[in-house]
């Protein structure tokens, strides 16, 4: 395997911004000549100095962004085993259907009878999300998982408000993703951590002690962020329900269990789904996503408004929901992302989705097997779709860190795995290969990992100097925070 980051190096231009290319009077835009009398607001309202946008030609723009794109690594460039993010292959057909004029060029406020296709799609997707998670109804409105979390927690809050007053605490495992505690706080609850036990699972005894009438609920990712299935889930559900709490399912790891088991059957009352992960929307450099939230029957009244309802006159957006927690964003959610999720779900079908999780688990376990020596799993149990190993072993004499491993992987042509998360694992390397990587690619990645482990002993400086094949080398993050330069 020859060496080199699979992205374009800087090339002849250096890191010049478009502003540097700007020349007074140069332009790309063009509009039809104004065909009505000019009418402008009064002077008092008017902008004096023009906005300092760059003045460039179309050719400048095309080359600038083409060049920048080539300096970026994506799933289309290679394996992207970023744990917890499910960076799987994104079928190109999803882009085709999302670009259909009937979906792409609809105004969010046009009357329902002119948007029957869009509403039917949303209705069908809601049905599918409910079937997959075992929920009664779902809202498609949250634009991402974190917003889904807040939605679910506000539903929890509204539910308790109606049933014997407010509760203050929401329990989350210490291995939880950062959005969980943050959402708990934003929903007005106090986040109470429950420790993981030696298995890397929720410590049920400890949980039992935390359970009281102030517990509004528990947030759980299952399989958890270690990729391990919470085998005590039934008992956990009993405990929480026993004190009148609700169970919240963080769906970020849903890719592990499609068609195998359903949060609803495990006792969860609220579920969010990261459609951009499980149902393959390109992550877009950081977004957009979609975070539909499903709930059990008794929580349906609290779902955000509007919902999509099927009536004899066709599909409608129903706004009249007296007990609803309200709306989470401006319109109908990240509709374009939902179209892609719909395409993904119905292209796969029941068996196809089951196969997705089977292959995801197979790939994760196979990769772990290949690298377990020298990168042992942090916990003994068999992982599902992802796993967490530790680079602890490499610190040894040369103090090589997980981050050094990550950077060296770049020079070997791969996007690194997630590092230093979950926090409960020292020198954590969290790997989620996803089901769309081939056996050969997993083996090539494993070979790279073993090479890095050897180099950590034979040539640790190589790791500390990495990456060397990229447009820039290690960047000074401390400096960025000290001398804030946030615009040109």
């Amino acid at each position: 395997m020859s060496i080199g980051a699979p992205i374009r190096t800087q090339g002849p231009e250096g890191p010049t911004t478009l502003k540097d290319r700007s020349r007074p009077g140069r332009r790309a835009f063009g509009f039809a000549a104004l065909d009505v009398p000019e009418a402008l607001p009064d002077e008092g309202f008017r902008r004096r100095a023009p906005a300092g946008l760059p003045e460039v030609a179309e050719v400048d723009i095309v080359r600038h962004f083409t060049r920048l794109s080539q300096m970026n690594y994506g799933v289309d460039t290679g394996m992207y085993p970023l744990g917890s993010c499910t960076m799987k292959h994104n079928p190109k057909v999803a882009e085709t259907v999302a670009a259909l004029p009937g979906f792409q060029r609809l105004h969010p406020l046009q009357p329902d009878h002119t948007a029957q296709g869009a509403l039917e799609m949303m209705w069908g997707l809601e049905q599918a999300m409910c079937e997959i998670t075992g929920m009664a109804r779902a809202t498609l409105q949250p634009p991402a998982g974190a917003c889904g979390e807040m939605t679910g927690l506000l539903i929890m809050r509204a539910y308790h408000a109606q049933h014997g007053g407010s509760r203050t605490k929401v329990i989350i495992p210490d291995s939880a993703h950062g959005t969980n505690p943050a959402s708990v706080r934003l929903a007005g609850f106090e986040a109470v951590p429950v420790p993981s036990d030696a298995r890397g699972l929720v410590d049920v005894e400890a949980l039992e002690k935390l359970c009281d009438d102030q517990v509004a609920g528990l947030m759980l990712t299952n399989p958890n962020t270690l990729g391990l299935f919470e085998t005590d889930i039934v008992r956990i559900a009993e405990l929480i329900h026993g004190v009148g709490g609700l169970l919240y399912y963080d769906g970020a790891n849903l890719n592990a269990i499609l068609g195998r088991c359903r949060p609803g059957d495990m006792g969860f009352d609220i579920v969010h789904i990261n459609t951009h992960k499980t149902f393959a929307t390109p992550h877009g450099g950081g977004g957009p996503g979609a975070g539909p939230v499903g709930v059990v029957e008794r929580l349906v009244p609290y779902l955000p408004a509007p919902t999509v309802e099927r009536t004899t006159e066709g599909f409608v957006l129903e706004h009249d929901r007296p007990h609803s927690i309200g709306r989470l964003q401006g319109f109908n959610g990240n509709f374009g992302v939902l179209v892609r999720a719909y395409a993904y779900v119905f292209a796969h079908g029941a068996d196809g989705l089951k196969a997705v999780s089977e292959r995801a688990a197979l790939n994760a376990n196979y990769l772990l097997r290949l690298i377990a020596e020298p990168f042992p799993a942090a916990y003994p149990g068999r992982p599902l779709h992802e796993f967490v190993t530790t680079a602890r072993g490499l610190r040894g004499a040369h103090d090589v860190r997980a981050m050094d491993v990550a950077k060296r992987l770049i020079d070997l042509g791969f996007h690194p795995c997630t590092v230093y998360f979950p926090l409960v694992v020292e020198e954590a390397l969290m790997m989620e290969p996803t089901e769309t990587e081939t056996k050969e690619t997993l083996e090539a990645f494993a070979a790279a990992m073993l090479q890095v482990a050897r180099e950590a002993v034979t040539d640790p400086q190589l790791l500390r100097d990495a990456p060397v094949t990229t447009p820039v080398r290690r960047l000074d993050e401390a400096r960025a925070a000290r001398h804030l330069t946030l615009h040109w």
Partner: protein
Amino acid sequence: MRFAPHTDDDVSEMLAALGLSGLDDLFDQIPTDVRVGGRLDLPDGISEMELVAQMTALAGHDRSTDDLVCFAGAGAYDHYVPSLVWALAGRSEFQTSYTPYQPELSQGVLQVLFEFQSMICELTALEVSNASLYDGATALAEAVTMSRGAGRGRVLVSAGVDPRYVETLRTYGRGAGYEPQLFDLQDGRGGAPVFTPDVAAIVVQHPNRLGILEPVRELFGEARDWGARTIQVFDPLSLGVLSPPGELGADIAVGEGQSLGNHLNFGGPYLGLIAARLDDVRRMPGRIVGETLDVDGTTGYVLTLQAREQHIRREKANSNVCTNQTLMAIAATVYMSWLGPQGLAELGRQCASKAAYAAQRLCEVDGVELLHPDAPFFKEFALRLPRPAEDVRDELVERGILAGVPLEDADGHALLVALTERRTRRQIDALASAMGEVLS
């Protein structure tokens, strides 16, 4: 359709290496009593060919803005999206990457976001922008969260703010423990907010939900005397013509970025814009990109001030946003580059002029008048109709025109009409005569 590349041989070889006899073994840690007995109640999988046929049929049941001449606005606008925007933003290296945690092989996205932040600062005349939020409504909610603090909990909101934004604020308020307090408009603008020392912020939308220009300086002036933060909801494409929030005295400016090169998409994905003053940078939600140097002294870009964020601060973070709308921000950056300062100004000039012309033509129709006759507006205006706006809107749909968005004002007799550079004089005249027919 399946995308997992495994052959039967792959599966058996991999299982063998794991010492497993079947795929089911991979899941045996799942308690039997929670397993799915049979099969999910979903249809069988289909081929790409069938999928495209089915979804094309679905989309065919919609009447897109290719087909209906669109005068609807109210926060989402039918501006022209130049071809180069998605030819570039759609480049798969951007599209299939994620949050640039590993900056060395993410310089593309990072530099675009740095340029995005820079352009938003140029637009708003403020000092810092983040790298995107979900949409305009959530951006407002985040701005309010930024503003609230010990002893300052109250939030005054102009009745001129988009009702969907207010609803969203209410939802967020349920968790955060505040109830946005609306103050009425007078003749469609202004109003008399009652300040007290515990007011955290005042929110004004300019142009407001009726398209009307607000006396922002006055409202904000008083707010600052009371030490309250000033939050303006703005329309980015108004800023070639209208004074930027920074000059109007806004501490925080939030807006909907959809009109910056993003399609209507029935409401999303859109783009939440937020800009503020430098002192507030550490209270800013979401990703922020900063410039720095690498070990060789080469300029590069990284995510900075991450200590603010949920993945570090966890329950102490004042936002939970993780996945954001980066791709829309990339599209917006391409679009703003295409516009440039002259394009931004010309675009504003055309919207304003066409709105003025449309208002005049429509008011020539018997029984139609402006809801607030003397209020100055930008690209949108509210009409008072002799009949319920919904009915009129629906009848005009029959004539191939999406005439606008009905409002609750004037007991449902108000219609909000928006004009973009795409609307031609011919289309405006056609709207006016169709309106005449429908109302005669």
